[in-house]
């Protein structure tokens, strides 16, 4: 069977599975729709959280980004896992103790203010919508690339599947499909990694192969360092991203952003009790760590394989570079998609791949007759996508990777859509506009707003607005600078009041957006950027994507000062804080 048939078969099977689960797990009450009945076991919730969390970006792009940035790419690994420590210690157990349905609901009640709730709903919607566009685009691209459908057709199929289980089942349907999706995606990620590790280092466990030796006896990472520095690239194991301070701020922004993402937090409302919320954060991180410790191994191995495919022999010798006509089959396949692009600059019919922006090496290279780096395009995603082909794995493994990428995108999209629809039906409608609404009507409103959210995500997927390009900067920056600080102050600072929280949130978002916009353009329209992406204009060399941490600090300071100047929160609010801090006696 060829790859395409396998892909239809495996993707079709997983989709049938998701639909089956949807029919089996229909939501009958708002409690089932919002929090899956509040009865999910810690391990199941951990697995669902892992799938909820790991998006198309984690699955497809992260290993590639690390492959081309080496040590600097570690910020994503530490940032997107270390956030779970904060989530487990500082957020999840307390919000579970509070025991209601949404994040804005907590913010509104804790700060006794509908305005605070409304600001929180707005932050949540901006964060989640930008995030969900990326997932929808991922689904469309996966379909068009592998199943050769139109991009739009792929997008519609993805929307249809999510529609089915998210609208019917709400959080309940999403939880069970996410568990299935986790299994699919982790299998799809680790199987090729095991084969590649085995082939390269003789060790089937990628995490061990990562620190193992390659066939000539040299350690893998040392070999990689030598191979790429010979071509003028920076050393893999110590190339810093920007500066130390930038890496520090970047890691911190990703960590506190993670702990402030509403679609992740609401997953912890689905377990029975507070101790289960803590335990399930632990399980979530176990399941996430399986992928996140495999990814750097895949990154290093793929970078080595990729470089050695082109630089087959000694650097500088003519026959050291592969002839373009003799490039491997996978190279040709990925050229067709535009993810790889070669341009024969010196007309010798061979491929030269080196760092031509390293002046010293560029001079040496020109003495070999090289006229610039000829790999003019290497998309980050190629490192995961082409992996099975580079390792000569059978067609079904390639099909599995496609199904895995789709599972990662769909599971994250569903979680985000639920966060959006529950904040519309529960916070906006029931909480602010129509407090008298019956449960049955609220459930229907939840379903309708879910349909609305899917439609909006779809439209933005077909006509991506300029700001979609800044998804990561936007989503993590906002979550880090607004939602995380307000939650922490709500739980840990009993005297924090309404005025402080609102001023803090607005200051935090304001500063972050201002910084991102001034370097990336207003709403990411590049021409409106008046300071440019120029590194010399960065505040202490911190890149816009890493600025959420600074926004969070501004939020804390403003909130603290304003709260000192205004009156303490009312007594019943201080009692609420006491209550969420203490264990329930019959549960302990």
């Amino acid at each position, binding site marked *: 069977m060829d790859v395409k048939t396998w892909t239809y078969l495996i993707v079709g099977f997983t989709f049938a599975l998701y639909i089956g689960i949807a029919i089996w797990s229909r939501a009958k009450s708002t409690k089932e729709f919002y929090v899956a009945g509040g009865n999910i076991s810690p391990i199941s919730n951990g697995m669902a959280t892992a799938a909820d969390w790991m998006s198309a970006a984690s699955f497809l792009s992260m290993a590639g980004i690390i492959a081309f940035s080496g040590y600097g790419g570690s910020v994503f*690994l530490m940032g997107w896992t270390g956030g779970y*420590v904060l989530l*487990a210690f500082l957020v999840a157990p307390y919000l579970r103790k509070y025991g209601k349905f949404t994040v804005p609901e907590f913010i509104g009640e804790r700060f006794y203010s509908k305005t605070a709730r409304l600001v929180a709903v707005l932050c949540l919607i901006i964060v989640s919508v930008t995030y969900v566009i990326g997932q929808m685009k991922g689904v469309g691209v996966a379909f068009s690339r592998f199943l050769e459908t139109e991009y739009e057709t792929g997008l519609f199929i993805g929307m249809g599947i999510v529609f089915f289980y998210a609208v019917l089942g709400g959080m309940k349907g999403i939880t069970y499909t996410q568990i299935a999706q986790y299994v699919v995606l982790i299998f799809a990620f680790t199987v090729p990694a095991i084969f590649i590790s085995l082939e390269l280092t003789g060790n089937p466990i990628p995490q061990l192969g990562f620190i193992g030796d390659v066939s000539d006896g*040299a350690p893998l990472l040392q070999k990689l360092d030598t191979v790429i520095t010979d071509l003028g690239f920076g050393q893999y194991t110590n190339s810093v991203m920007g500066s130390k301070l930038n890496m520090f701020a970047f890691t911190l922004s990703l960590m506190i952003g993670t702990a402030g993402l509403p679609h992740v937090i609401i997953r912890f409302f689905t377990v029975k009790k507070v101790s289960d919320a803590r335990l399930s954060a632990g399980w979530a991180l*176990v399941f996430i760590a399986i992928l996140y410790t495999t990814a750097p191994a895949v990154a290093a191995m793929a970078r080595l394989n990729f470089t050695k495919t082109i630089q087959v022999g000694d650097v500088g010798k003519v026959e050291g570079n592969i002839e373009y006509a003799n490039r491997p089959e996978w190279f040709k396949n990925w050229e067709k998609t535009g993810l790889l692009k070669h341009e024969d600059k010196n007309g010798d019919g061979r491929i030269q791949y080196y760092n031509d922006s390293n002046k010293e090496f560029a001079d040496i290279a020109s003495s070999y007759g090289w006229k610039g780096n000829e790999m003019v395009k290497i998309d980050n995603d190629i490192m995961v996508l082409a992996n099975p082909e580079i390792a000569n794995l059978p067609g079904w493994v390639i099909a599995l990777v496609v199904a895995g990428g789709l599972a990662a995108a769909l599971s994250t999209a569903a979680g985000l859509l639920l966060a959006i629809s529950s904040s519309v039906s529960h916070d906006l409608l029931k909480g602010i506009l129509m407090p008298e609404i019956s449960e049955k009507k609220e459930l229907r409103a939840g379903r309708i707003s879910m349909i609305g959210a899917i439609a909006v995500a779809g439209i933005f997927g077909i006509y991506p607005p300029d700001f979609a390009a800044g998804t990561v900067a936007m989503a993590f920056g906002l979550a880090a600078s607004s939602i995380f600080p307000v939650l922490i102050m709500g739980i840990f600072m009993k005297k924090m009041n309404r005025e402080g929280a609102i001023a803090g949130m607005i200051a935090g978002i304001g500063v972050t957006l201002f910084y991102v916009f001034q370097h990336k353009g207003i709403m990411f329209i590049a021409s409106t950027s008046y300071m440019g992406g120029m590194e010399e204009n960065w505040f202490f060399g911190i890149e816009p994507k890493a600025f959420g941490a600074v926004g969070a600090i501004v939020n804390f300071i403003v909130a603290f000062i304003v709260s000192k100047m205004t009156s303490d929160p009312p007594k019943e609010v201080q009692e609420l804080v006491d209550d969420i801090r203490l264990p329930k*006696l019959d549960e302990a």
Partner: protein
Amino acid sequence: MSEQEIEITDQSNSSNSDKPAMTKEEYWRKNITCVLSLLAVWFFVSYGCAILFVEQMNKIQIGGAGLGFWMAQQGSIYVFVALIFVYVRLMNKLESEYAGRNMNGNEIQNQGEE
């Protein structure tokens, strides 16, 4: 090994009921101490070993790379996982101590929901 553990928890439980009720302030103080000490480890392995002092850590070699690099791409993640499970254990212990000291006829402070 496991028998010993059971014995220890048994002892602490029986002594719990003799002790006076744990105040909410005492419970909260213990909780904060626990969280802050674990966060110190969290900070040390990621921001410390893998970013701020990465050069010093890299002087120690592991599998052809520096230990600082390995901490950044592997080690810190393993420590994060371990930290959450340690936290789960410590908090369960603290909660059952709180429950033990506040249940048996002792003055109950702020029982919680509703």
